[in-house]
């Protein structure tokens, strides 16, 4: 029993609810939500420490023994993601302070933001398949509202598509849960794993697992990413950034959880399919990234590419591939938020998101420019920044699994990523300066702090990768050994 797990959910939840009660006090909103996220960061740090010293932590909500109640489980994988989520959320929140505007602030922006984070935390923590659905919904419905918050035309239009596709995928999720319940008769993931391991993964179970690939693939933007480009470029920067950083990652997390814990018996079917979808994602995403010449769209397609790469590590289903994926996942959350924040800042400065209309920003905004440069390198996996290690290991993992095409495409697309982000850098920051400071539409005042924070994180995670590796190793080991998880949840003697 470890009640710290639930605190992660409760703190943002309660803060959000209290903020609803005090609707008018914007300053209080800011302070309270920042404080809540700081506290959750600290708790996630504590959790990491606890998992490292004491192994996987679990909490049986309501005190009901494992397969019957809802279990909360934190292993190193989720703990790392929790910490990253907290940090990234904190940074994006800081960006929102100066950029989101008072109308949105007065209309529950901060509570909704906190609920979104709550949903994400919940998804990372829960050990129960149905509860995962519920946490997904908390996250999704907050994202619906955040996406449409403000009600501009483009927001409304994209919200409709986004909601529709997500509603359907949620339905499919429930369908999958229903089938699985019929076949295996339980909802607890550890119990599911134990039961399936007991009788083997037969045809029906494999088929149901493919349904889960589709469901989580929809959330993770794995191949079925059509909803993503529109909806990520519609909302204001801070929201777009947190979406880019978190939403797909939750789907990815779910894929990792289910396909390392439950459906790992037939990798030649399930994981191969994941690999194929990963390749398709990377290729299509890369084409999308180089196709367009407006900042937001380039960046959104970059989100897609990285999903493919991360899943490639899972598809390899090897220790090293998974290690790489975990590294890359953490990196990706940070870097996508960073890129979106900088991209949004450029757009708000210049008032346009078309490349080529405004050039030479580096003369007036050198720091912004260089941070974008670092981010651009980092997102393409250029060493020694944070994306490098993950990419190398994912490549190695896929090669070891014999999926040379997978790793090869991963490497090639990172060149296309580089091309696409450098296109932004070279067009927006280089060239003749044609926008004097007086003509600028926006300002970088007050929004630089989160950008600097995230930039430092990506550099530190690259240069100081060693600091994270022991944890990643634990995480990968646990993912590759479902028994660890099962023991932590069900107790060591309950493999029935």
């Amino acid at each position: 029993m470890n009640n710290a797990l639930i605190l992660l959910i409760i703190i943002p939840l309660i803060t959000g609810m209290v903020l609803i009660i005090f609707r008018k006090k914007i300053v209080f909103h800011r302070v309270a939500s920042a404080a809540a996220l700081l506290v959750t960061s600290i708790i996630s740090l504590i959790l990491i420490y606890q998992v490292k010293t004491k192994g996987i932590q679990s909490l049986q909500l309501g005190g009901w023994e494992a397969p019957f109640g809802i279990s909360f489980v934190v292993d190193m994988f989720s703990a790392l993601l929790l910490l990253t989520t907290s940090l990234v959320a904190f940074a994006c929140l800081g960006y929102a302070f100066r950029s989101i505007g008072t109308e949105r602030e007065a209309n529950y922006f901060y509570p909704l933001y906190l609920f979104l984070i709550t949903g994400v935390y919940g998804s990372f923590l829960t050990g129960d398949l149905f509860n995962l659905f519920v946490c997904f919904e908390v996250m999704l419905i907050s994202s619906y509202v955040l996406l449409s918050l403000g009600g501009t035309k483009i927001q409304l239009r994209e919200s409709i598509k986004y909601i529709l596709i997500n509603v359907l995928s949620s339905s499919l999720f429930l369908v999958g849960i229903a089938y699985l319940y019929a076949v295996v008769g339980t909802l607890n993931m550890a119990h599911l794993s134990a039961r399936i391991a007991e009788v083997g993964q037969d045809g029906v179970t494999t088929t149901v697992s493919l349904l889960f690939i589709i469901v989580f693939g929809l959330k993770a933007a794995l191949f079925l990413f059509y909803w993503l480009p529109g909806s990520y470029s519609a909302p204001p920067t801070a929201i777009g950034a947190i979406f880019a950083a978190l939403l797909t990652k939750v789907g990815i997390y779910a894929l990792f959880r289910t396909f390392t814990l439950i459906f790992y018996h037939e990798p030649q079917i399930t994981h191969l399919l994941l690999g194929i979808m990963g390749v398709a994602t990377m290729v299509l995403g890369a084409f999308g990234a180089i196709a367009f010449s407006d900042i937001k769209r380039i960046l959104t397609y970059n989100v897609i590419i990285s999903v493919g790469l991360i899943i490639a590590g899972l598809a390899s289903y090897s220790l090293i591939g998974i290690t790489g994926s975990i590294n890359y996942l953490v990196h990706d959350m940070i870097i996508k938020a960073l890129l979106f924040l900088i991209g949004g800042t450029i757009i708000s400065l210049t008032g346009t998101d078309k490349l080529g209309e405004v050039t030479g920003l580096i003369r007036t905004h050198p720091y912004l420019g260089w941070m974008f440069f670092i981010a651009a390198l980092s997102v393409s996996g250029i060493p020694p920044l944070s994306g490098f290690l993950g990419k190398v290991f994912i490549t190695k993992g896929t090669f070891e699994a014999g999926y040379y095409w997978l790793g090869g495409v991963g490497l090639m697309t990172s060149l296309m990523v580089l091309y696409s982000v450098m296109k932004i850098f070279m067009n927006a920051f280089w060239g003749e300066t044609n926008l004097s400071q007086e003509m600028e539409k926006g300002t970088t005042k007050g929004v630089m702090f989160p950008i600097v924070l995230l930039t430092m994180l990506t550099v530190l995670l690259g240069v100081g990768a060693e600091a994270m590796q022991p944890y990643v190793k634990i995480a990968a080991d646990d993912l590759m050994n479902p028994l660890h998880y099962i023991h932590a949840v069900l107790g060591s003697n309950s493999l029935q």
Partner: protein
Amino acid sequence: METLMAITIGFLFSLGTYLVLTKSLIRIILGTSIIGHGVNLLILTMGGLKTGGPPLLGGEDLSYTDALPQALILTAIVINFAVTALFLVLAYRSYKTLRTDDMEQLRGYEDE
């Protein structure tokens, strides 16, 4: 009964999918609702339709129907309702702002 239910559920899914694929926004939302019904029935069916008593203790029933799927469906219904409400209001707002409910006119690549 399970077979009959499975077929019914399949029907509901087909109808819902068909509606979702049409162009009118309101029909699309109707479609998601129908799919929602299909999902609920599916969970119930997959929980097994054994004909015990209702899951209320204290009666003279000796066996009870599986209560867990019922609880799940309850949660699902509520969530589905919340999402549908939001979706509907969004559709309403979009219509007022964008002056159309035709999804084909909401593609939105031309005006950018």
